């Protein structure tokens, strides 16, 4: 294949990423104009006496970690099941509860109890997600309705698991995971995001998950007649989402040094769905780009941080967020897209006519 063709192919592959990339570019540009030093990074010494990088850019990428991870899983579930899981926040609370209960079991948190806590947390979360998954894949219930159940009572279940309102977490490991590992200037959650991305990438490379998931999402019946098991794929997507939720919950709990079942990752389900949509993914299932959703997550976080930096009152952030989201989504809507393409075509045609005219002379 010629070089030119290869390049066009790559650009075509970027098609789905157009919207998030443009949005990101606009946001970055906006910030740079408003405050050139916005993205500056510097080394400071943090509370624990370690040298760490600090600055808005770091803070954005760091704070968005939980959302980015959950968005990955949410993308898969959306692609395979054609619907959204609105219980991720509530299940995160449950995950956090499992983790805290096990990790705090002894007098202090050791590496051992930490790891055990993470394992139990992941397994427990998978169990709850499989509840959702079973309702969706076996009982054929719409995802948003099926997950409404845990959405309603998930946080209460978390409370029940732990028995007390806000258990505290103390220990160097907690700090290391929630903030930074001593000696490494970049916050740990960022590494975890990268790790998850790599893991997911490996799964895609060494299995047929992408092909199967997209097939099931686009035409479940046809997928089945090709030997794919739609029920298994859908369940698997929920399991992966479960792992993502568990990891995000651990990050969240470590960051705050406590588990508050009411506020842990609250409203994150909405943000996750938004991230998936901004990422150019079809909320009705089918083809997907994980990268798009992750970009969407960072865009949402950057938006929030930008607003804070502009001294917008935290309680009003929601309103501005809404407006920006509407703009982004409208720009990506099929109607607007086709109008813009038509406009470009007209410009191109008139240009070529003009060029041809000149050529004749």
């Amino acid at each position, binding site marked *: 294949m010629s070089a030119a063709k290869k390049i066009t192919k790559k650009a075509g592959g970027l098609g789905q990423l157009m919207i998030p990339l443009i949005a990101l570019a606009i946001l970055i540009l906006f910030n740079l104009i408003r405050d050139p030093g916005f993205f500056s990074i510097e080394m400071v010494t943090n509370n624990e006496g370690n040298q760490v990088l600090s600055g808005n850019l770091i803070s954005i990428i760091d704070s968005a970690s939980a959302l980015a991870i959950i968005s990955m899983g949410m993308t898969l579930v959306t692609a395979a099941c054609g619907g*959204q899981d609105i219980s991720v926040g509530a299940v995160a609370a449950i995950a956090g509860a499992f983790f805290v209960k096990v990790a705090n079991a002894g007098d202090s948190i050791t590496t051992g109890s930490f790891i055990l806590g993470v394992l139990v947390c992941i397994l427990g979360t998978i169990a709850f997600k499989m509840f959702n998954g079973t*309702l969706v894949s076996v*009982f*054929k*219930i*719409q995802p*948003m*309705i*099926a997950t*409404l*159940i*845990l*959405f*309603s*009572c*998930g*946080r*209460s*279940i978390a*409370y*029940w698991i732990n028995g007390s309102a806000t258990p505290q977490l103390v220990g160097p490991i907690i700090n290391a995971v929630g903030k930074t590992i001593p000696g490494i200037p970049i916050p740990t959650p960022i590494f975890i995001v990268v790790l998850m991305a790599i893991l997911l990438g490996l799964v895609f490379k060494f299995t047929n998950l992408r092909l199967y998931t997209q097939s099931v999402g686009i035409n479940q019946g046809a997928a089945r007649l090709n030997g794919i098991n739609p029920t298994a794929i859908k369940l698997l997507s929920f399991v992966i989402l479960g792992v993502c939720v568990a990891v995000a919950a651990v990050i969240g709990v470590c960051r705050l040094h406590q588990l508050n079942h009411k506020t842990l990752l609250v409203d994150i389900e*909405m943000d996750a*769905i*938004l991230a998936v*949509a901004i990422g150019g993914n079809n*909320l009705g299932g089918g083809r997907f780009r994980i990268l798009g959703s992750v970009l969407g997550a960072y865009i949402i976080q950057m938006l929030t941080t930008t607003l804070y930096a502009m001294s917008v*009152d935290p*309680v*009003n*952030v*929601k*309103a*501005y*967020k*809404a*407006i920006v*989201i*509407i703009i982004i*989504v*409208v720009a990506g*809507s*099929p*109607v*607007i897209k086709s109008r813009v393409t038509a406009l470009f075509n007209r410009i191109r045609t008139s240009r070529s006519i003009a060029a041809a005219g000149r050529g004749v002379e």
Partner: protein
Amino acid sequence: MKRREPLSNTQLLMSIAIGIFVFMYTAAIIGLGGGFLKFQQVFDLLNDNAYLIIIGCALTVVMIGGGINISVGGVISLTVMACALFLNGTGMQNGLGVFVTLLLALGIGLAFGVGQGFLVSYLGIQPFIVTLAGMFLSRGLTTMLSVNPVKVTHESFLALSKTKIQIGFLGYVAQNGNQIPAKLEIGAVVAILVVICSFLMLRYVKLGRNIYALGGNQQSALMLGINVKRTRFLSYVISGLLSGLAGFIFIMHKPAGNASVAMRSEMDAIAASIIGGTLLTGGVGNVIGTFFGVMILATIQKIIGLSGLNDSWWQDMASGALLGFFILLQSVVLSGREKRRAQKTASPVLQKG
């Protein structure tokens, strides 16, 4: 002689909801006794949940058309706050002030309905995203108007809100021998009227039937000559308008605005619709069922409250369990019907000759 047609899906699910409500209420009477026997109890449920009944209808209408609107709670809170501030600050006293407030409430609801309807229907954006943004926007605007709670001080309004319709013969005899009539708030009456009007619209007005068609098969609706875009647009406008109305009813019931008004009520509205037999996929739904869905949720809330159990924990678990039960029920009932129908149509009758 007319043959009775088998119950349609929506009628069946609605009947189940009604049945469960009756069952639950009876259980409450038996279990928790006296209080539930009074009509006042039912009236209290209606009074407290009038706003929920109204947005339940709003959501049912949108869901029948295959859409969803999760901004209703936010719109209520914005409406409540705006009305509270307006009432306190306005120079218009008496009935005029109240009337203008009503217009304000409807106006806010209408604005959201029109805006969201436009984005969903004419720009083709996913309803979940649009109404999610609507929810964010309305909640955000609420706090922008006032971070602190605002108590209404407008005299005429307060007088109106305290007005109750007295129905003597449904009352009860108090311990001191006085006849105490059952009291129904204006809001409750409005809610019932909304249910009736919604029912009539969905059943007898062209727009209502078009909404059903749209939800049943959008492509077909288009081919049948229905203006799909306009129908969808109007369904969102209606839901917006009803949200505004629900806000007005809410503030009449609790004359104060604050940021946490009607939190998560959109989920309650969706739950009530589902319980009442509305399918999220569209084309199937019934406001009467939704009404009973709200009543079921409200009854459970009351039962929990009166039993002295830990309020919010049991609330959540109960709604979760209830939802789970009805969702599974829907799925089982509908798939059972599908199987039986498929068997019937599978072997066509070969006529002799």
